[in-house]
């Protein structure tokens, strides 16, 4: 009994100190994690936050049911959809958009017929129905939602550039 007592005590003391040390170390690690803000996120959509931070999710915006047709920024821009498209089906069976935007239905429904570019295939050959590459309208046309701009746009359209240049030239003369 007596012979064993010495080593036993030593073992107990060693075990205790090492576990305390481990605990302290673990605490340190935790503290490190909390303090480290991580690399900063890309500015813009995630303004102010870093990659490790959880931001509150933004509110899911509401679809605008109807609005005046907005101006296109440039001639080739796919115009945005100025009306609600809730539950509109576009799949192998059916394309709801074309019930109003086809050549035949547009006068009756008061819509603008999808322009002829929608009927050309990529070889420039006009087809009898909407070309497969234009079939999924929402690839290019988007409905509008009640939401603030995430990033301000500095886009200036052609007319603006022409006016600016003209006034500059007038200034020079």
């Amino acid at each position, binding site marked *: 009994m007596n012979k064993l007592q010495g080593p036993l005590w030593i073992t107990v003391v060693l075990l205790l100190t090492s576990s305390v040390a481990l605990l302290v170390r673990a605490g340190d690690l935790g503290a490190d994690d909390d303090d480290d803000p991580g690399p900063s996120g890309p500015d813009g959509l995630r303004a102010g936050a870093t990659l490790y931070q959880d931001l509150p999710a933004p509110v899911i915006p509401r679809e605008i*049911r*109807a609005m005046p047709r907005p101006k296109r920024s440039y001639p080739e821009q796919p115009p945005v959809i100025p009306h609600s498209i809730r*539950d509109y*089906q576009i799949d192998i*069976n*059916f394309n*709801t958009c074309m*019930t109003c935007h*086809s050549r035949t*239905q547009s006068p009756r429904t008061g819509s603008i017929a999808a322009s002829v570019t929608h009927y050309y295939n990529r070889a420039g050959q006009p087809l009898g129905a909407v070309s497969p590459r234009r079939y999924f309208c929402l690839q290019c046309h988007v409905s509008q939602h009640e939401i603030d701009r995430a990033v301000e746009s500095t886009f200036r359209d052609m007319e603006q550039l022409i006016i600016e240049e003209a006034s500059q030239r007038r200034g020079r003369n």
Partner: protein
Amino acid sequence: MGIRKTVGDYWTLLNQPAQYLSLGVLTLGGFIAGILFWGGFNTAMEFTNIEQFCISCHEMEVKPYRELKPTIHYTNRSGVRAQCADCHVPHDWTFKVARKMEASKEVWGWIFGTINTHEKFEARRRELAEREWTRLKANDSLECRNCHDFDYMDFTEQSSRARMMHASSLATGEATCIDCHKGIAHRLPDMTGVSAWQ
């Protein structure tokens, strides 16, 4: 000979005037029995109107019900919901019984597996949809009008597209709801050849 005799005996018995019951009791009994039968029949019929019953059949749960869920008749800002029976079962009693008798055929189809897979459902969808379109066209979209009454539509609240159509074709009775609002609750089948729908 024997059978005819028994039948004959029963007939004489039933044909005899009641000996021990007063006419009042008889009338009352008949009345109560009638109510019980009528009530039971209607209750049973009401039970088959509950959505849970409709979608206890696998195909109805997987296809029409799940398709209904994201649409406006299942989730909207007002929290008012349409159930299967609201659109598919007439409220008028005679029409209701007629539709139920038709539906018995559908139960048959279910038992014998006429439509028990995704593929079979999709293959028959046009036929099934057309049956509903014909019914709604024939009754001037009665089931829709049970909830949506034209007389109470406020055009100023409607979007311009809706206002334009409702104030013209709908108001004149030229078209009814289902002419323009197909696929309001479920995915549509291949629509080739459906007039005004390409």
